[in-house]
């Protein structure tokens, strides 16, 4: 399909009710405006020695400083990367490789993003030992359980700040305190295990003050906070060594080669600053909308269950499971009436596995198949919520009437199978 045809399709899409902010956010117009000069006319390479290059470098440094202000850290503790996923990979692989001589044990939670799980699996294949901290049925980790797993060999613990699927906010401060009590000092005066948190979903919703949180490393990204896609950052506390993933240049203190994308970095910094300033007010607004949404959903679809913690959850997250019907089907029918959300159903995943997060909170596969995540955002209004509350119940009714699980025949079959099982 040609670009013209793609644009044509986009223009003909009609009104969309977007409730997938956890997947990505629209760019803030103010942010876009601030980025534009760095595409043209200030397009230079920040590594160049000439005037325009040095100006580009200044723009990158200024952005680094803004982000450091939000995180309450030193500018040199911020490394820009291409995405939250890259930052996660860098944290896991980079720390493990740098401190292999100190230990080979890594701990992660059962509900980490795949950008943590996959690199850690790779490390496991390369001889590292990995422990997984289970979570309760609300997705909350057991801090004591995690601490019990810490041993002499543990070099790294990674627990996400807030879960992208079910919205549960993890007790990071408590976890850090508890781990520090059992940590040992290494040769360089560093306390192991180091603690990393993936804060991609927390950005714009929760405080990112790394001193106050106490973490050693933190992943943040731009696409969830009304900035441009294609840029993320990794906070690495001063004094911590890390092996770079991408080689071949001196950018980012020799830790991440590649010509910096100045407009993306500038956009990220500005978006984060705006989002952090608006954080408290916006969170309050979203919590009210979320509460209204959940109440309405449970009234109109009483068989649905809400996933995640009731109170310690992201202000914008509404994750539900509906029995007897399947997630991809729900999404497609919602899409047909202009509503955009996402699902943890296996059928929608390439590998056909149901969401590991839902399985980790003890949900049965059949409920996991009927899950939908709505994530609200800056431009979500009550009108949008009312529209979903109007359109979703008939969709649920329709799919339930098509479903095999609401037939007499399947009920008899389930009972018969239960009888014949030895």
């Amino acid at each position: 399909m040609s670009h013209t045809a793609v644009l044509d399709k986009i223009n003909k899409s009609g009104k969309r009710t977007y409730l997938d902010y956890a997947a990505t956010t629209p760019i803030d117009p103010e942010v876009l405006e601030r980025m534009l000069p760095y595409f043209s006319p200030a397009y230079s390479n920040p590594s160049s020695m000439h005037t325009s290059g040095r100006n580009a470098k200044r723009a990158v440094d200024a952005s680094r400083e803004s982000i450091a202000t939000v995180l309450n850290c030193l500018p040199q503790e911020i490394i820009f990367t291409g995405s939250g996923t890259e930052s996660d990979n860098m944290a896991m692989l980079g720390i493990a490789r740098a401190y292999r001589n100190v230990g080979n044990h890594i701990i992660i939670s059962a509900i980490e993003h795949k950008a943590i799980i996959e690199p850690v699996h790779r490390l496991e294949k390369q001889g590292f030992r990995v422990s997984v901290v289970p979570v309760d049925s609300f997705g909350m980790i057991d801090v004591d359980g995690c601490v019990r797993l810490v041993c002499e060999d543990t070099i790294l613990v990674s627990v996400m700040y807030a879960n992208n699927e079910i919205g549960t906010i993890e007790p990071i401060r408590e976890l850090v305190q508890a781990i520090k009590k059992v940590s040992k000092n290494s040769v360089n005066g560093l306390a192991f295990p180091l603690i990393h948190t993936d804060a991609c979903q927390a950005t714009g919703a929760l405080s990112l003050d790394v001193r106050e949180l106490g973490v050693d490393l933190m992943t943040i990204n731009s696409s969830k906070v009304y900035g441009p896609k294609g840029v993320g950052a990794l906070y690495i506390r001063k004094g911590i060594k890390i092996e770079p993933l991408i080689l071949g240049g001196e950018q980012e203190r020799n830790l991440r080669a590649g010509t910096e994308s100045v407009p993306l970095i500038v956009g990220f910094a500005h978006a984060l600053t705006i989002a952090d300033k608006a954080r408290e007010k916006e969170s309050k607004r979203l919590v009210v909308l979320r509460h209204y949404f959940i109440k309405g959903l449970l009234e109109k679809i009483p068989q649905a269950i809400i996933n995640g913690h009731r109170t310690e959850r992201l202000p914008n997250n509404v994750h539900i499971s509906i029995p007897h019907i399947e997630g991809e089907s729900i999404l497609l029918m919602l899409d047909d009436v202009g509503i955009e959300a996402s699902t943890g159903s296996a059928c929608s995943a390439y590998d056909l596995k149901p969401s590991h997060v839902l399985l980790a909170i003890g949900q049965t596969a059949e409920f996991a198949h009927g899950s939908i995540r709505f994530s609200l955002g800056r431009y979500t209004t009550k009108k949008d919520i009312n529209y979903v509350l109007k359109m979703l119940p008939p969709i649920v009714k329709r799919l339930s009437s098509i479903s095999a699980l609401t037939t007499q025949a399947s009920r008899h079959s389930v009972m018969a199978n239960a009888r014949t099982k030895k």
Partner: protein
Amino acid sequence: MIQENKINYFVTKIVTHAPNIKTIYLECRDGTGKAYTPVFRAGQFINVYFPETGTPEGKAYSISSAPHEDILAITVKAVGEFSNKLHQLKVGDRLTASMPYGYFYTETETSELVMIAGGISIAPFRSMILDSLQKKPNRKLALFHSSRTYDESIFRDEFAVLEKRFPNLKVFRYVTRDKVANVGIIHERLKIEDIIGTTDKAKLDIHTREFLICGSINFVGELWKGLRKAGVPEDVIYTESFFSH
């Protein structure tokens, strides 16, 4: 819903054909501990369960032994986490799987059979060939097997002996990646014309022949389309394919 019935099998023997291909022999035990083989038809499969791999629905493996052999064996190539778990089994280990199930067989007893297998999917055809030769020794059978390497072209010796004894059985082995020429191997890609066209190797009766194709989704899909394009009616083609992930 036969698939829902999960029973315990026990490993009785393991035979290695190639570095990553094994045949695992299984038996069941009744309430008194007596061993028995579940009833199955040639062409059927069992659904194996290793829920710890995050696949509650399990994976299907074709039965490669024939019913009259009174054993149930599956032939497995180790390609991923699941199949490697099967390869790690030892004699005496327990395995949870379904009863034999599936519809990959023809009920027509008078047809001449063209069997086409991709890689490890030769498994159900071993069952079918042995079963057919035992029940109707004169029935014409042709097997086209396409594999990437010579190692993967399994059951060579066994089928060579059968071909000698039964002139109505013809086996055509294609190996696509190995450059070294091996006796009895066709070192090129399997073409549709070899099955049904200008270079038809099997030369079976076009009025009675039926086709059974087993392999990856793409392999089966391409061959099905090719046969249909060549005028073969839909109702004489049987397919079996498993999405591998």
